[in-house]
Each structure stands twice: as C-alpha cells, then as structure tokens.
C-alpha cells in the first residue's frame, strides 16, 4: 500500500493571522508576501470566515501530466509533488492544468507547495493548529502518479 503525505486544513480553527502565508513566502522567496505563498488564507465575506488552501499533492498529478518539460515529479521521500527549477521553462501549462488553483508562476519561479522537504513550516508555525501534515494510504494506485 502506498503511503502519502499532504497538508490538511481546518478553517474553523483559523484566526486569520496569515502566519502560514508569511512563513511560506519568507522561507521560499525571502520576502513576507501573501502573494508569494503556496498556502493561502482567504477571507469569506461578509462575516469573517476564513478559507485555507494549499496543494493536495494529488494522486493523479494534473500539473505533472501537463508539463511539457517534464519538470514536475513526486518526491517519493516526502510525497510532495515538486518542480525542478532547472527543467522548468515557466510556460504556465501546470497553472492551467491544476483543477484547484494551487500552482502559479510568480516572477521567475513556480509557486507550489513542496511540503518544505517533509517539514512544512506553515504547519509548524500555525498558532491554532488549523494546518496539519497527515500521512494517509492511497485508496488505489494511479497510473503515472509517480515518476
């Protein structure tokens, strides 16, 4: 049985503090910028509910399948779907392919959660445990899900 890891969110616990976005952008892009974070806190109007979202590290990797450069693959150690910056030509095909809007090209970089090498910082820093890293068993193997 294949075991995988991903981040799950519990928006009912979110206090809106943006710490996840700030640590993600600071660690990966050296700037405090929600727009350069791979995890997103979104306010739901009108009554201050928050939505949290990040890459589901899909079993069926739409972005990898769409990538013409073969730059996206699964890191078997962490279970994260990662982008090889050396191979990536920033064409944006992955952005189009992601059904969940969790990958973007920002400047010279593809923005996508890589689980921080297995220790996601957003999970570690969240003050309210609204984000957690879970290990789960795939219900069925998907052809082409790994490379």
């Amino acid at each position, binding site marked *: 049985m294949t075991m995988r890891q991903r981040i799950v969110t519990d928006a*009912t616990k979110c*206090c*809106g*503090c*943006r*710490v996840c976005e*700030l*640590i993600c*952008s*600071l*660690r990966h*892009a*050296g*700037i*405090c*910028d*929600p*727009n*350069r974070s791979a995890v997103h*806190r*979104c*306010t*739901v*109007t*009108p*009554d*201050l509910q928050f939505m949290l979202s990040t890459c589901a590290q899909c079993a069926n990797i739409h972005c990898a399948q769409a990538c013409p450069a073969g730059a996206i693959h699964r890191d078997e150690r962490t279970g994260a779907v990662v982008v090889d910056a050396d191979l990536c030509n920033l064409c944006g095909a992955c952005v189009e392919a992601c059904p969940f809007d969790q990958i973007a090209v920002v400047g010279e970089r593809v923005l996508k959660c890589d689980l921080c090498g297995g220790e996601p910082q957003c999970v570690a*820093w969240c*003050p*309210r445990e609204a984000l957690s890293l879970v290990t789960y068993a795939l219900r069925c193997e998907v052809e082409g899900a790994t490379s």
Partner: protein
Amino acid sequence: LPLTNRVLHIDLNHLATDTSEIPSEAVRLLLGGGGVGLYLWGTSVRPEVDPFAPENDLVISAGALTGTIMPGCAKVTAVCKNTVVATDDGRHYVACSVAGSRDFGQMMKGARWDHIVIHGQSERPLYVLVEDDEVQFIPAEHLWGTTGTESGSAVLREQHGADVGTMVIGAAGENRVRFSMAVVDLSHSLGRAGVGAVMGAKNLKALVVRGTQGVPVADPAGLVTVAQKTVTNVKAWDHLPVWSRLGMGGGWSTFRYTQYPGKWPMDRWDRLYGEEKRLESLEKVLACSSCHLGCRVKWRIPDGTHAGEVGYGSPYGKSATGGQLLGIEDINQMIHLVAVANAAGLDFYTWTRLTDWFTTLVDRGLVDADQPGIRVERTYPCYEQLMDMTIHREGIGSVLAEGWIPVAEYIGRDPQEYWYAGINKGTDFIYDARSARIHPLTFSFITNPRPHHGGTHSLSTAAGKPPEQIREQIEEWGVSTEMLIEESPEPKLQVGRMTKYTEDAMMVRNALGACSMYPAFGLERMHHLLAAFNAVSGEDLSLDQLMATGDRLFNLLKWLNVREGFRREDDRIPELWLRPMESPEGVIATRDYYGQHELSRADLEAMLEQYYVERGWNPESGCPTRAQLRALKLDRLLGAKQTGTEK
C-alpha cells in the same frame, strides 16, 4: 535595502495625489510608523488648527515591522488633532492613535506605502481605493448614512476583493461625534483621537488598500530566528490556553480587579459577566496578521431579543464594565450595545461613562430627567435610544456627542466629579487606579498628551510583580535598575521615573508597528524587536539607539502638544484617585504598586516631579527645553524656528 519611507499624499480638495520620500537619515532618527507619522503631521499642519478643518491632516502609517512575520507586528497608526475638547479654554491635543490589523497594514506595506497622508476635504462623500501605485477616488453616496463600519467594509470587500485592508467610518464619524473612531478590518479601532470625526469632516467614508508586492526583508534567516524566539516563549507560556480560549489578555481573573467599578459585589459581576458568560457568545478568536495570541473575537448572541446577532472586536471588557456602570444585568443586551457602537464607530468607553454620569445626576435630582427628545432613566431601552440619539446627534444626543467638557457645561457640573476611572484632557481613562493601582501605565494617563495608555504596557502593568522580573525588563532599557526599583526595606517601584521609559518603549513600538501585549506578559523583549528591525532593514542599530529614538519620539509628541499650548497644569492628577471608592467589596483607595501604602496627593505630585526630572523637562512648565530638542536632533528635523519652547 533602502531605509527611506514612501509617502502617498491624497489631496481631497483637488482629488489629486502626490508622493514623497522620507530620506534614510530622517528614518534612522524616527524609525517609521507612528514616529514618522508625527513628523509628517507636525511639519505640514499649523498649530491651533481647528480639528474639523480641511487642514487637519490625517496621517495613516504602517510600522517598520508591520506586514512581517515578527509576532504581533501588524499595527497601523493615525496622527491628527483630536476633535474632543481637552480643556475649558477649548484646546485639543494632537494624538497618535493605534490599531492592530489583519489585512490593512499588510496591504499598505505590500503596496509599498509606509504612510498615507489625507489632506483637505472632499466636496462629496467618497472613499479612496489604493492599489499599489494606483489611486481612485470613488463616490460613496451609496454608503454614506446607510452603512456602518461592518456593513460598509463588507460592501467594499465584495467590490474590491475579500482580502483588501479596510478603514471605515460609521454614522458617528459621518455625524462628527467628537469621540468617534475609524474601524480597521472590521475588528480593530483607531480610537481616542477623533479619527472617525476627522474622516467624517473630510467626507471620507473609507480607505481601501490592496498591495501585491510584499514586504522585503534584508536578512530572512535572521528574521525567522528572532521571530521563532517569541513564538517559543508564547508556546511555553502557561497562560496561553486561557488566552486562546477567551481571546483576551489577562483573562477574567485579571480584568475583574483592574477594571472593577465598585458598584456591584464581585460575585454578582462574576455571575453576570464572568468567563462562562463570555463563552456563551464567543464564536471564534481573531488575530492580527503575524500574531500568535489573538485578542479580537467574532461573537454571536445566543438568545434573547438580539439572538443571532454577529459582531467583531473585543466586546467583553467593554460590556462588563459598562454593564456594571449602567446597571444592566443582561450581558447580551450590553454586547448588542457594543455592536451598535462599533457599527457607528462610537467610542463605547466614553459613551457608557458619560451616560452613566448623566443618568446618575438625573437619579439624584441634580439634572432634569426630561431632556430634548427623551426622558432619561436608568433602563436598557433608554440607553438604547440615547446611544442612537448620540450617534445621530438628535435631541440631547447632540450634547452627548460633544464629549465631557461640553456636557459638563450643559449641566453646569465639573467632569472631575465623575466616580469611575478618572478624566484628564477631556478624555476618560480605561483603568481606575484605585482598582488597578498606580503603575507606569495608569500614571501615563496623567503624563501622556493623549490620556490613553496606547500601548504603555510593560511587565509592571499587572500589579505586584516581583522586583526581579521587572528588573530584567528594565535592564535592557539602559537605565540603572536600582533607580527604578527598590527591594529593601520593602519593594518599591519608582513609578514617576519608570513611566518615562515605558512611554519611550511605547513610542518605539508604535514606530515599529509592534503589539504591546507581548511585553506585558514578558513574551518579547526590546532586544527582540531590535534584532527584527535590523533583520528587516539591514541596519545595525543598537539597543541604546533604539531607546534613544523612543525618547526622541515622545519629545516630538510632547512638543506638538506644547505647540498647542499644553503645559504642566494640564497634566492634572485626577481628583477621583484621591477619593477612596466605597464598594460592596470594601473601601478601595489608590495604593502604590505593591499595595502597601495608600497614596496622597503629595505622593502623586512627587511622582510627577520625578517624571519631569527623568524626562529632563523644565519641571515648572512641564515642557522640553530647547537644548534638549537640539540634543535629540529634533530641531534639525522640524526646523529651528518651530522648536523654541523653554530655554
């Protein structure tokens, strides 16, 4: 990284914009945020300007660390002349009001604006949308008079994106109620500076900001390291579970003695407004950006007439104190009143105290119960109606909307008669020193040009802390601890002297955008903020320089108010603190920090004298000297002509 601050000037007279830069050398002296905000106001507005005049600029600033991951660094400040009448001869103080933010500060910094200065007055109601470098003036007739701070913000977020920063006024600001506020991101307020009324006078319904560029950091790893230290302290703090559950600082156990109004027996207050009652309506704790504590909440009234009503902010302290003062036993009725005040942008503290004073004088037959538009009595329906009349300036509400000194004139009484907390410079205090004791925070109500703590928190805010704990905090301020705290023959805090340093620390925090709750519980120290500032800016400031900046900024604030004619005689010791509170819990007199001695007027006067000495001010006039302003380099910043105060 360049240390320069970028300033966006918005001219409402001509619906035009301009930009300017504060050079690095000036920023090094003022840090940023509220520090530069005071400088911008002081150098562009003439003394004695009418607070409602178009020339009373409103300077909105985001702190130097706002928008970064440093825990609690999310503050924005507003500098303007307060619309509240501060003295019998009609003077008004210049204030720097402070609010946390979830989005506003982040967006302002992300748009790369450190300061937004609102000049002039629009002919018609509008709101201003700032999206990075783009500015739009958008008609707001559809919002003016029809939306409150919450509904207005919801409309603007619907229109411009759910995560924009919003600063909105409600009916109180629109109607120029003198003690009105602007509400930031639905749950934070810029109060006690008349910001709501100043925006109302400018016909400015709201400021909406979106920034897409983030906050650059010179040393990301260094910033992560220092932020982690504060996070580690927070996680190890044994009080954290209580805070996280209630969404408030000290919890009920602290609140009930620091803000006890002395009307009800304590057990009755506990039963009606205590922790369990709070949890009934608390739906969710809300935090500022970067904050690991969270002191705002979203509430939903569970039952009664207002069942299902939702609100945002910090309703529990206000409802508990206000409920006891007004004699309202139903917490949900009081929370509803907080919601009405928040939607209108009305200062709930001032309104409840002013109304309590008025009603009690009616109860005692000293003021006529029949007032224009209403028969005043101590009932909830009457208060509900009175609040509405105040917000809309109808009948007697038009008098209440003017604040303490005009109300006192109307009824022919002295505000110093009022029996809770105390009043100075036309402003009621948050804490009553008889319940909370004398410590630097309560003492700053006398010395601060704006008699509100505004973040003068330190470990000594909670009474009776062991000297060794306080000493640790004092040591990094670069002063002799022996001078500020004694251990034998009995522990004694030199409150007058120490107030100077807590005020300086507050100015540093307002410039950096750093929350003051963290130091109040020893969770963060000044050297952490220093490391964060250096990591973000790439500067190499020392702790001594940081504290010296605090001194400079407080002198700047003071000087702006000296310019308005404020002198030592305005730093009045409240008569109330010398009248023991006769409560069901016994007689409560103003006592020293360790609770050992009842304090007399002479004791408080001596503390005030010590304060002026420590500040290096002329003790007779209570003003900074010219030499001092020169030494602080304020003369250069402000222009030599303006700095002449005392030789």
